């Protein structure tokens, strides 16, 4: 019955994964899978098991064992901003993890070369969150709100030769589109609402090459991925009240286009990885859309488009290491560690908005234990991450300092902690 209990737990954890969709942002903040999380999100050049669909789907190629892993992670975001007095904000986001590796048992030339992978990171009771505040409200939109969405990726990896693997993955996010039509005649008003949950998808393409016996190279491209909210509200024949068509729109979740490049040195005990991630944040269009969009013929348009966020592209260097301790043929442990620097794409908040972000230093630790209970091969994983937000000061320009004297000069800081646990089984 232990197995049954484990299965029950597994599905409890698995929850709604497929329910709606999803994609990205918690994966971008912390990585997916216990091993990459413990190694500061390295792992594109060399890795194990089922979370490669996100990290590098090419690493699925050549997998020969079916594998299932289930886990839990908790992230604590503590941010603060200081004006004339300090304001602290704290938010926890708990998520469940699921990973599946399914080698496809083709024969002939494809034998033991092709495998499917699924990975899901699912916030509790949530598919996605849209937290899009008025811009003058102090907020850290690239931290806790980004961690609150279902992150779902499927991948297919192929071992082309013994030293070359390629892979293709796809990520999902959920979005909402709706229309509200209000019409009235003869003192009777009717409202019709139509809503649709839609998906957005983004590709992941990966390559892994073994340059020498010990040297691995990983290259991954992830397409930009965004979840959109679009509610169009229109009125017709509603007597004295006249409102222009309203567009309640925004982008609650966004991952920029990114490229991972990683070089890893691997032997029987050690893995040392050096990597960089490029994020094309400059393409980010902004959190909120324009509430009233005027027809082209309209000369006097009262609602301006929200100010462009002015994000910048970023390069994030990272390094990770793992050391394996083989105790017996069926028992081994692995110690992992990593460090990364995550620059902030957000400019200084010198105008009306008070959306804050800072560069982060990230340190991570991980532990893996491979063991057997009876004949059942199991794998236990632990990952810890600590993110330090560098201190930053935002000075408003004189015009906006006059409008918002309280926020004329604001300094920000904060920390993020992650704890993740996982249990995997080969079946």
């Amino acid at each position, binding site marked *: 019955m232990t*197995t*049954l209990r484990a*299965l029950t737990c597994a*599905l*409890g954890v698995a*929850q*709604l*994964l*497929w*329910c*709606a969709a999803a994609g990205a942002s918690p994966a971008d903040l912390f990585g997916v899978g216990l091993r990459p999380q413990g190694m500061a999100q390295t792992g594109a050049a060399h890795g194990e098991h089922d979370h490669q669909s996100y990290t590098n789907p090419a690493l699925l190629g050549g997998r020969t064992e079916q594998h299932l892993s289930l886990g839990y992670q908790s992230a604590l975001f503590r941010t603060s901003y200081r004006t004339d007095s300090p304001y602290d904000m704290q938010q926890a986001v708990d998520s469940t993890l699921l990973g*599946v590796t*399914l080698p*496809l*048992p*083709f*024969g*002939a030339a494809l034998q033991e070369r092709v495998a499917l992978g699924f990975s899901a990171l699912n916030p509790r*009771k*949530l*598919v*996605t*969150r*849209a*937290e899009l*505040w*008025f811009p003058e409200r102090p907020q850290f939109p690239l931290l806790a709100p980004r961690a609150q969405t279902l992150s779902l990726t499927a991948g297919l990896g192929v071992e082309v030769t013994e030293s070359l693997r390629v892979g293709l993955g796809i990520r999902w996010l959920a979005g*909402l589109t709706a229309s*509200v039509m209000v019409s*009235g005649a003869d003192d009777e*008003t009717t*409202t*019709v*609402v*139509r*809503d*649709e*949950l839609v*998906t957005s998808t983004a590709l992941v393409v990966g390559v892994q090459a073994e340059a020498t016996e010990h040297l691995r190279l990983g290259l991954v491209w992830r397409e930009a991925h965004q979840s959109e*909210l679009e*509610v169009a*509200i229109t*009125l017709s024949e*509603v007597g*004295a*009240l*006249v*409102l*222009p068509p*309203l567009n*309640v729109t*925004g982008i609650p979740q966004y991952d920029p286009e990114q490229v991972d490049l990683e070089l890893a040195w691997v032997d029987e005990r050690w893995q040392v990885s050096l990597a960089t991630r490029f994020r094309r944040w400059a393409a980010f269009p902004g959190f*909120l859309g324009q*509430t*009233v969009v*005027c027809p082209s013929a309209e000369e006097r348009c*009262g*609602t301006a488009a929200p100010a462009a966020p002015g994000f910048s592209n970023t390069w994030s260097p990272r390094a990770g290491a793992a050391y394996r301790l083989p105790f017996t043929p069926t028992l081994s442990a692995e110690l992992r560690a990593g460090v990364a620097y995550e620059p902030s794409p957000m400019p200084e908040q010198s105008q009306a908005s008070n959306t804050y972000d800072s560069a982060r230093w990230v340190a991570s630790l991980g532990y893996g234990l491979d063991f057997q209970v009876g*004949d059942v091969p199991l794998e236990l994983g632990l990952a810890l991450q600590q993110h330090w937000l560098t201190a930053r000061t935002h000075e408003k320009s004189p015009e906006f300092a006059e409008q918002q004297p309280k926020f004329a000069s604001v300094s920000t800081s904060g920390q993020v902690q992650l704890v993740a646990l996982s249990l995997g089984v080969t*079946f």
Partner: protein
Amino acid sequence: MKRLGALALLRCLLVGAGLGASSSAGATPVDSLGLGARSKALAGAVAASGRDFSVSYYNPARLAFLERMQLSFGYTHTELGLSQNEQPSGLPAVRAFGFGVVAPGRVAGVPVAFGLAVQLPRGHLSQGQSIREGDPYWVFYEGRLQLLYTSLNLALRPLPWWSIGIGTASLAATDGGFDVRGTVVAPEFERSEYESDLEHQVDANLISVRYPQLAMAFEPSARLSFGISYREEAKVETTVSAGLDATIDGTIIEVPIRYDVMVESVKMFIPRQLNLAAAWSPGAWILELDVTWNDWSTYESPVSSTTTVVEADPPEGVEIELPESPEPPRRAHPGFKDRWVPRLGAEYRVELHTRLTLPLRAGYVYEASPVPSQRGRTNFLDADRHVFSAGTGVSVAGLEPWLGGTQHLNVAVQLGVLEAREVEKSEPAATPRRITAEGSFWALSADLSLEL
């Protein structure tokens, strides 16, 4: 202040904008139309003998009886021809992709399996439309058929003739709200409403609930098999709020207003279900009878409940008439009844060649409507229905070394006929005074299942 008298209209706007008013109550599409071409052709009578990815829905314990990995892909098209009061319902066709995985394996020598089943409506994950008390509403066909269905399952077979399976499926809905603020310009004195200066913020969640399913399957002999499966009730209750904080600019006067609306509704509902199944497989035949109990008596009304609060601060000396903020109406219990649904399926396999088999399938299901006669204000539409199904396909073996198992192509056609139903209203204020419901639907499905 006639302009502010129009705030009642604004209420409609904001109520409408509260997406919680949209309803897809009574999910899911596979409950209504089935999953997988083979299973549909057998009228869903497969809980005891199912052998493809669709057992993730019908009886996940069957997964542990499957020996090979399967990858399945399919498509289904359903055309609805329903009408109320001799008027076409206008309900859209249902087009959906299907996808399934069966991954068997062994843990400590015990056969185990992982199963995944997905039916994805083409172009969206879900689609809904708001309903108010009195709106004609096809309970089992509106919204419900346009939802994503997903199910994840695990099974193990501790004894050669006995397996157990557990799984989850889930529902999702929108919860939260938004605010609009700024200045609304009245289009008078050569001014335009587009001069309004408005902006918005959003605080919303796409929430989810999961519901478990438990199942067992028995194969005491090569010819006899049994199944029992249970699905728990699930519902999504949502609260959506909307607010307008604006100044109405009438050129001559300006009036600040604050308007808040909160909409509560049971957005989705799946009843508790218990299915009992028995199959007999003499020779090339498979005959199966399933009976499903649906706990529809706990169904809650999908009609939304709305609370509004309006405040205005007109200039001194100006009197305005504000709309009342009425108490939200109590949602009446819809009074649905539980029902038992019998399903009958038969398959005969014609061996055309040692490597080629032609299956012939047929099925029938009768579903008594759980919806009571609509004599009051509500107009929940449904009728007893008969669904006839048939299907065929081709099974090909011997494609080694590329593919190790048997490959299946399945097609199915379903014809559903709703018995005509007519009800005279007894509630004096109810309109229309008489309501009829009738119609039919047909569905065509195909899928390809690769055994590896």
